[in-house]
């Protein structure tokens, strides 16, 4: 299974039209086949980063399904629709992802993903993208042993994040080394504490902690707060 992750820099005046095309036409077009589905439609929460940025994640049964769709967008029956999407954004940056070995999400039943635009509550994800200065495999293993395992042991009342998926960029389709965590925020008051905390995780005073250990492999990552649309197939 392959996941297409796209960050769209949308033209602000056309933001509603862009979302409408995704909801009413794009998702429906994919639903006519069996090998591709829009999975998440996420707005970068205003106040936490760039304005008018949208992240979409599309799942494919395999790479051939991605190539077929991409060629339909460039030259086939989806080219007109693709042109209209293209005209309502400045650019889009995509990458092809596969789940890391320990990711909770490995395979999706594409047939079970909603395609009818049904509405639901909103949820917010913290998408963390890390760029290690050590071998990528070591970083992914660190996330497994020192982050994923630790986070699962936190009692529900103190839990901030539910790590739903972890991906790495497939060779040649983006940046290497890079890995991505899709983490659903399950407690907004805990998020508030995180954002307003002045606690400094000094590696000299937190020996053995994930924050200290992580610095041995990377010191650059980016968190994005992404809010699902009310109709995003998964949320």
């Amino acid at each position: 299974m392959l996941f297409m992750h796209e960050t769209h820099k949308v033209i602000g005046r056309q933001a509603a039209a862009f979302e409408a095309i995704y909801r009413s036409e794009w998702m429906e077009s994919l639903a006519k086949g069996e090998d591709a589905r829009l999975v998440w439609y996420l707005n970068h929460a205003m106040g936490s980063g760039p304005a008018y940025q949208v992240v979409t994640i599309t799942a494919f049964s395999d790479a051939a399904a991605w190539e077929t769709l991409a060629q339909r967008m460039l030259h086939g029956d989806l080219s007109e629709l693709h042109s209209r999407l293209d005209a309502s954004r400045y650019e889009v940056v995509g990458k092809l992802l596969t789940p890391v070995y320990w990711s909770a999400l490995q395979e999706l039943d594409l047939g079970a993903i909603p395609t009818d635009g049904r509405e639901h509550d909103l949820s917010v994800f913290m998408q963390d993208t890390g760029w290690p200065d050590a071998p990528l495999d070591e970083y992914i293993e660190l996330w497994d042993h020192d982050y994923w395992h630790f986070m699962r042991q936190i009692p529900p009342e103190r839990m901030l994040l539910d790590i739903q998926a972890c991906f790495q960029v497939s060779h040649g389709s983006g940046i290497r080394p890079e890995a991505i965590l899709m983490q659903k925020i399950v407690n907004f008051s805990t998020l508030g504490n995180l954002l307003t905390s002045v606690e400094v995780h000094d590696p000299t005073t937190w020996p053995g902690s994930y924050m200290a250990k992580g610095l041995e492999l990377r010191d650059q990552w980016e968190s994005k707060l992404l809010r699902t649309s009310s109709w995003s197939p998964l949320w």
Partner: protein
Amino acid sequence: MLFVHEVHKVVGKAAAQFEDAYRNRWMPTLAEGSDARLVWYFDLAHGSGLAYRAVTVTAVRDAAAWYRLAERVKSGDLQAWGRDLDGLQHDAVGRIMTPLEWSPTLGSFDDIPTDPAEHEPTMYMEDTMWPFPGKVREYIEAAGNVYQKSLGAEGSQMQMHIELALQTMPGAGRYPEVTLMQKLSSLAPLIRLLTQDIPSEVLEPGSWMHEALELRDQWRSKLLRTAVWSPFQ
């Protein structure tokens, strides 16, 4: 055929080892199978941009072949190679590209050389353009009808020709984005371009430089020199 285009930010002290990893490991390993071939290994010419940048272009038969290759790098027989490369480059930025309708062809996939025979290095001007929103198709058409033909015309400002014209596939890089791999056949026009003002007639209404501004005004040129062993020169 698809092309995996990568720009590598190489660790300066490890530049020779980095090149060796492509010449003596990546290229021959790919040659053992039928999914992928290294096509070009370039160095960004010192003095023309960022230091210690290498550009590689790898051909894959199709997306299924690319995926098999990617899985080998992720967890198969090329995982150790990828891990070693992590220590030889700060990062690499890749994209998967497909030829434009009017692009010249490199020939058959099976005819791509796989032996490290040495040649004289060749200079390329790699141009990457980002058309305005909704203008990529018009740009591609105009680039084929007007720009490409102008390169071959008598009195052309540049003595170069397009070896391969590509666009980034949706979902595997930035879109819209077009890249032209242009082989220089003479350096003198390049030196003129770099050291003299562009002639006014080249900028007048009706010229490519003028009219194409309706379709894009941002592009980036890279001066790339092939390694002596690069399969394609």
